[in-house]
């Protein structure tokens, strides 16, 4: 079932019934797996953890299909659940688990914008931010959400979201500037 068929599934009156069937639910998973997986991957920078959390999110969706009202609601539900599960999992691990930086080369001087190594360095820097600030950055730059939406989703004041964004970007800019100068 492709994206077009998936849209048909969601638009039909009995979409929830169709979604409960294997083919319908598999179409929903394929449609949204990149979004859910990317939120977890950019938050943890650990593929095993990202896969586990993303699978848990879809299993939770299957259990809660009855509460989903529309395609828009489905997407927002997945995004919110993925974000909250990432933060919860991070807190549960008590910050003790080291996040492996898979295949990350050491940053060196002479990097320019657009350099793949520089991008990987940026990802590493984002992964080192405090969990709430990191999730705000992921939702802003991966999901292209505006601060109002992020505030509503994470249940925090809009000014806190703005503050996380300003400080986060400022800190990354400063750190990266030092790396590029070295």
């Amino acid at each position, binding site marked *: 079932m492709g994206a077009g068929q998936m849209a048909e599934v969601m638009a039909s009156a009995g979409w929830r019934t169709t979604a409960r069937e294997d083919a319908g639910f598999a179409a929903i998973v394929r449609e949204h*797996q990149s979004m859910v997986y*990317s939120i977890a*991957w950019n938050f943890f920078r650990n593929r095993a953890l990202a896969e586990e959390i993303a699978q848990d999110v879809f*299993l939770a969706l*299957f*259990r809660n299909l009855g509460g989903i009202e529309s395609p828009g609601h489905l997407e927002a539900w997945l995004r919110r659940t993925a974000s909250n599960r990432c933060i919860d999992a991070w807190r549960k691990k008590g910050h003790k688990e080291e996040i492996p930086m898979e295949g990350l080369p050491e940053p060196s001087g002479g990097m320019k914008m657009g350099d793949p190594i520089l991008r990987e360095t940026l990802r590493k820097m984002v992964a080192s931010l405090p969990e709430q600030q990191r999730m705000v950055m*992921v939702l802003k*730059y991966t999901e292209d959400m505006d601060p109002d939406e992020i505030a509503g989703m994470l249940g925090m004041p809009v000014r806190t979201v703005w503050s996380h964004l300003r400080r986060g970007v400022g800190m990354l*800019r400063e750190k990266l500037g030092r790396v590029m100068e070295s």
Partner: protein
Amino acid sequence: MDRFEQELKDALKREPAPEWFADAVMARVSAERQRKQKPVWSGWARMRWVAASVVVVAVVGGVRFEQQRQERFRGEQAKQELMAAFQVTGMKLREVEERVLPVIHRGEE
């Protein structure tokens, strides 16, 4: 959005999930479905089975209790009838004795 933020956006852009991801999710969904289809062990179904079992045990126990009560009653009745028969027999024997003994005594004299 300045150049740095664009760089950040490119660095954090969405990535495709592993190819097997949807299959792994569907395997877990299938396991969940099978777990839900075990009626004896699932919430309400288990409660219904327990309630039905209690009713059956109560009915069977009640019927058995009533049967035993009736048997005891019949036994008591038979015992009383037997005792009454013994009493009647005893009385008749005493009557016969009272009639026969004077005749025997007169014969001896």
